[in-house]
């Protein structure tokens, strides 16, 4: 049941984009088309799970035993940056179709604070490995849910005449705000 709670919490109740404010840059940046949104979601899920696993071991095997948890930020981001680059290089060679689908989004992910944020949250919450994996995967799905929904709305808004002053970022933020408001309905569901 705890896993179920983690999943529901990460996807709906504490959605990383709509209530935790993580990953806003790609949320606003890559949400103009549904297809791009889907690709980004795939890439984020992939990297987020791997990054969480790797940083989990770094935390448990290096930082905590040596009493140097203050190095969390720097070592996590170093690992994530290297990991993203590694995944990109490997994917490009091993599976070009997958690279086409996901790889193009990989550079964006280094600076996606959702990845680092989820990695840090995972260790802060003292999850075990399986919980960490479940948590990161559902966070990524929550990200994807918000992103794709948002992209859908934006695609539809492309078709109508938005008042000039509201075009672009303002209307996107407004939609995100209303979406966040709607998602507050899930409050207390865990």
């Amino acid at each position: 049941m705890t896993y179920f709670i983690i999943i529901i919490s990460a996807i709906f109740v504490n959605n990383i984009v709509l209530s935790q404010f993580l990953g806003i840059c790609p949320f606003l940046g890559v949400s103009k088309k549904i297809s791009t949104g889907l690709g980004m979601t795939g890439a984020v899920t992939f990297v987020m799970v791997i990054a969480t696993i790797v940083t989990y071991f770094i935390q448990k095997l290096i930082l905590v035993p040596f009493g140097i948890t203050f190095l969390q930020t720097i070592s996590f981001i170093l690992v994530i940056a290297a990991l993203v680059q590694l995944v990109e290089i490997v994917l490009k060679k091993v599976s070009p179709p997958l690279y086409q689908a996901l790889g193009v989004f990989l550079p964006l992910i280094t600076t996606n604070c959702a990845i680092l944020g989820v990695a840090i949250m995972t260790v802060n919450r003292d999850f075990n490995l399986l919980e960490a994996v479940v948590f990161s995967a559902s966070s990524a799905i929550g990200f994807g849910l918000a992103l794709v929904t948002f992209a859908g709305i934006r695609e539809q808004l492309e078709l109508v005449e938005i008042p000039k002053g509201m075009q672009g970022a303002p209307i996107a933020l407004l939609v995100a705000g209303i979406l966040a408001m709607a998602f507050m309905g899930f409050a207390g569901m865990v």
Partner: protein
Amino acid sequence: MNQWSNFTKGFFKENPVFVMLLGMCPTLGVTSSAINGLGMGLATTFVLVMSNIVVALVKDFIPEKVRIPSFIVIIASFVTIVEMVMQAWLPALFEALGLFIPLIVVNCIVLGRAEAFASKNSVGSSIIDGLGMGLGFSLALTILGTTRELLGSGKAFGLPIFSESYGMLVFVLAPGAFIALGYLIALINKIRRAG
């Protein structure tokens, strides 16, 4: 580019938040009050200036392939320093900003300026650039923080302006952050077009 305009561009013309839409996560995440916004802005400014200096200093020694990792390490170390210093001397703010302090490291503004400006310019102009951008960022965060605090709880910088009971709670919460920023950007756009 003259140094003065280099410094001031971050305030309005190229404001990282309102115009370039960078660093959105902390912008939205910590601005439930003006003071938090300001604190976050200043912390980011510090990291921005310091990493700009260091990147400008070492730019010629870094091989291409490890450029990004190197910059990230430099930035991350300053973030860690900020983290520790705040924890020691500003524990209240440290708690209020929470997760977003380590996340300065992935703030697009910091890495973006390091890449776009500091890695190509002298130390002096990098400082000015970092300072200008950082203060512009702080300004934006403070404005947004004040707006949200005022609308949400009737206060500005913690000082009561009107009774808290009138406040629209939404503005303190996540949705209000998006909505307030959306309208602020619309307003800024209008001013920019008019000006």
